[in-house]
């Protein structure tokens, strides 16, 4: 399975999970309970406990908004584009996250999305996707 496809499945899983969820999960909020994507980088051989090379920084909804608001400059208000640049409204969160990461990794060709997505961690790209897909259409 291609990494993109793998991520799709995992992200889709949390979305499915969250859709069934009517109340917040009972777990301790400070403990990460779901790891939606595979690590970008293999753990260092000498320290198997190292889980990630990206600093683990919780993304607050306010930060997700600060990240995502930048997208609307090109993709139009709430991702609804009036012109030649594609709208974002047709994407659900998992599709958008997959697509953003494919741009970042160079798996999908682009004029400019590759240059932009390389400025974000995968976690940030996912937060952007979740925020934009959650906006009222």
């Amino acid at each position, binding site marked *: 399975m291609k990494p993109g496809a793998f991520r799709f499945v995992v992200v889709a899983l949390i979305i499915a999970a*969250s859709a069934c*969820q009517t109340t917040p999960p009972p777990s301790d909020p400070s403990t990460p*309970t779901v790891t939606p994507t595979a690590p970008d980088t293999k753990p260092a051989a000498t320290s198997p406990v190292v889980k990630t090379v990206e600093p683990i920084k919780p993304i607050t909804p306010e930060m997700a908004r600060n990240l995502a*608001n*930048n997208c*609307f400059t*090109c993709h139009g208000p709430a991702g609804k584009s009036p012109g030649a640049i594609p709208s974002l409204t047709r994407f659900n969160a998992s599709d958008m996250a997959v697509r953003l990461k494919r741009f970042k990794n160079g798996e999908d060709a682009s004029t*400019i999305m590759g240059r*932009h997505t390389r400025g974000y961690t995968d*976690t940030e790209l996912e937060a952007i996707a979740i925020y934009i897909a959650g906006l009222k259409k």
Partner: protein
Amino acid sequence: MSRFTRRDFLRIAGAASTASIWTSPADAADKKTAAKKSAQVVVIGGGFAGATCAKYLKAADPSITVTLIEPEKKYVTGPLSNHVVAGVRKIENISIGYDGLRKRGVQVLHDWATAIDPGKRRVALKSGKSLAYDKLVVAPGIELKWGAIKHYTDVAAVAMPHAWKAGSQTLRLRDQLAKMRNGGTFIITAPQNPYRCPPGPYERASLVAHYFKRNKPKSKILILDAKDAFSKQALFLDAWKQLYGNMIEWIPSSKGGIVTAVNTSRMQLDTETGVKYRGDVINIVPPQTAGSIARMARLTDDKGWCPVNPLTFESKKFKNIFVIGDSAVAGALPKSAFAANSEAKIAANAIVAELQGQAPAEASYINTCYSLVAPDYGISIAGVYRVTAEGISEIPGAGGESPKDADAHFRADEAKYALGWYASIVADIWS
């Protein structure tokens, strides 16, 4: 690698679903009447920075009373004004009114801010009114440094337009070019950094070349530059050769490009090396500073721009005043409409957080400057920015210029996206 908990996911998606940029004015009004005492935010300037901030303030917290002060009923955009100069677009198509913002609940006053009292937190207007504020946003764009090039005054700008504030000056330059004889010389000067729209003078030279090629093919274009390097230089130089042969000549500062004085009666420019240049049409892009009101209110530093906190764009000079757009010192961000829009959104959310007694969320900025070398040939430079110990810094490995070896399809796509970007940013702000 991601560490989203289901709870994180729900919180982010939940924040989006209640984000009020798309709430109807009726919703906004309900919330407003429910609020105890509405906070007052005054925004000076309805350009890319100020108008964005007004809209996003209202979106983030509809209970805030947002008053936008802008003298012009129709704002003419810098972006695409080079198309107007080259006769490929009408000025009506780059002029925007404020009804969209009014529909969002922003109070728009067509007036000038004449003074700011940071102690009493009041803004005086030309009409004689005075407004109280809890937070003030100052977004007056640029002022031209008259006299920095000797004899270049507002009077000289009639004969030698700047067209660096879009509007009547844009039309003046367009008309002069339309009247110029075939075989004439068009001179454009470019200032030292920093200035509004770093690739702007070169895009203008390009689109004028496009116009000359079709209408006055024996004409010449001379760029007299106060710098030795410019934005997207290799891409521009390549494209000029390919599209316009030798029509455009760039004279950098080290080869005598620094203009020291203008002589409007002879249509002549003096340069530092003593060489004089005569032109049939001369376009001076002069050195610039922050908008006058920012300087009058002592928001500027000794270089004439406004230092700000990179996380919020709050002035480093006075509390409760935020400076955004071209007037601000924004680290690695250029003075562009795109950056102004990005800064304004961060400032709006920081202001709302402060009014609600919360800390601002982490800031993130982006920029893309598209330039049209011809109507079907676009190039771009992009950047993603975060706040580091050095201020607003570009993230290494991201951003950068269009590829040098791209084919005609790629250039045509970027030209299409340049226009798409324009439609989107205008909708993001004024609709």
